[in-house]
């Protein structure tokens, strides 16, 4: 679940570090050029990195409270909440799919409600409570929804999964009828190209039944 495991090392590589160090030459170059600082840093280290990063013209200071931790940042006003979470704070569990609010891969919670982080500016969320997939559970103590997605095989490639799970967890607190059709309607903002929908619905219904 967590790409940026502080325990990551040669004997325990994260997926991201693995891709960067073992990809083909061209791919590795591209990835390294794109996320040079983020390939192996942790969220905790990102604040230090941000402090020493080259100054951004017209950057605005904000405090983003993500998964219970305050991050003092300076961001270009154009930075979306999604890009800020992924690129600045280096929490890469939240995914960028369409970047236009059409796929749901970027779903996070703001003050407990699910939103598309790609269609929101980071600056609009100064001081608000943000929860990402990294804040739900840990590999050793999964959130019940994460456990249900594993148990019910609610994914194939996994790219949409963090968004699906963030949506599913928010759904538990929303008005939603008991049947599968109601769950499908409220999950329609999360697209899965692999077509894992039946198992996603099954995972959500299992958690609703168990809680």
């Amino acid at each position, binding site marked *: 679940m967590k790409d940026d495991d502080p325990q990551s090392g040669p004997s325990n590589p994260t997926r991201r570090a693995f891709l960067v160090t073992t990809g083909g030459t061209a791919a590795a170059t591209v990835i390294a050029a794109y996320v040079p600082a983020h390939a192996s840093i942790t969220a905790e280290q990102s604040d230090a990195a941000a402090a020493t990063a080259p100054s951004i013209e017209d950057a605005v200071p904000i405090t983003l409270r993500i998964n219970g931790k305050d991050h003092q940042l300076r961001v270009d006003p*154009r930075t979306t909440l999604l890009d800020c979470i992924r690129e600045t704070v280096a929490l890469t569990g939240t995914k960028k799919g369409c970047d236009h*609010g059409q796929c*749901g891969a970027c779903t996070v919670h703001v003050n407990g409600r699910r939103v598309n982080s790609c*269609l929101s*500016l980071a600056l609009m969320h100064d001081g608000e409570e943000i929860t990402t997939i990294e804040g739900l559970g840990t590999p050793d103590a999964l959130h019940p929804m994460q456990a249900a997605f594993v148990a019910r095989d609610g994914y194939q490639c996994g790219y949409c999964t963090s968004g699906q799970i963030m949506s599913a967890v928010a759904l538990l607190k929303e008005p939603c009828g008991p049947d599968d059709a109601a769950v499908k309607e409220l999950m329609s903002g999360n697209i899965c190209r692999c077509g894992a929908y039946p198992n996603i619905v099954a995972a959500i219904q299992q958690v609703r039944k168990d809680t």
Partner: protein
Amino acid sequence: MHTFKFIRPQDSAAAVAAAARAKTAQQGADVRFVAGGTTLLDLMKLNVETPERVLDINRLPLDKIEAAPDGGLKIGATVRNSDLAHHPIVQRDYSVLSQAILNGASAQLRNMATTAGNLLQRTRCAYFRDTAMPCNKREPGTGCPAITGSNRTLAILGTSEHCIATNPSDMCVAMAALEATIHVQGPKGPRAVLIGDFHLLPGNTPDRETVLEPGDLITHVTLPPPIAGSKQVYLKLRDRASYEFALASAAVVITVASGNVTRARIALGGVGTKPWRSHEAEAALAGHPANHANFRKAAEAALRNAKPQSENGFKIELARRCLTHALQMAATG
């Protein structure tokens, strides 16, 4: 995305003053308010919107739903669509509005999108969204490639030779049937605009979509007191079951007494260049028996002036059936 200055006005007066310096409040505006951001950010990423200043109104006290003195409802500009749709008074007295909102977008987007933002939602016309293409709405005078191009989802009512873009909103269609009033605070003070007068037909100036002028801030919307005994239905037809814009939709608020329609308010979505109130359908129904034949007559009246494009002729019959069915649902519900 172009660079911009991000400003958070301290109050509505400061927001109005900061926006009043804009050259226009229409397409090409150099100052934009941002609330949910679901339309604005989307279009800024496409460089369709290129504001130099973005004024964040999310922390202004415009997020309340309150009873209005006249017995109606006052809905703040930044009330999220999900909060509006689930509000107990809306569900009880204005259910067509709740139905319309819950038929639009996704749960995430409804948590972001606001009352005022939805009023200003922009068309989904692919040519408008693509800066490589001509578009009279985006760049006046460049032409409308939709008329000879891909127009399956575009409008059949209210079009002009310069623009056939559909207004995509569901919320506005319900508000048209509920005869909402939009309250605006501007540089010259507050004013109220009936929703039927708020959106403009494209005509020769498709870049002008509303009556808003620089500095105008929508502060709230009011709904008239509920109509006792009215039946309300929003029916939306689209290419997939959820999370899609309407090909045709109908909002109906009708009152039936002794088998006769005593009052009808009808609006159509997905077919007009603005949220389409149909006075013709209402007149065809009022005072007549509430039966299928009359519902069909009302639907035919609503679409009488429809003008099909090369790919969207099917929408005329689709909209007729949509309205007929919505009226049938309301009358029997």
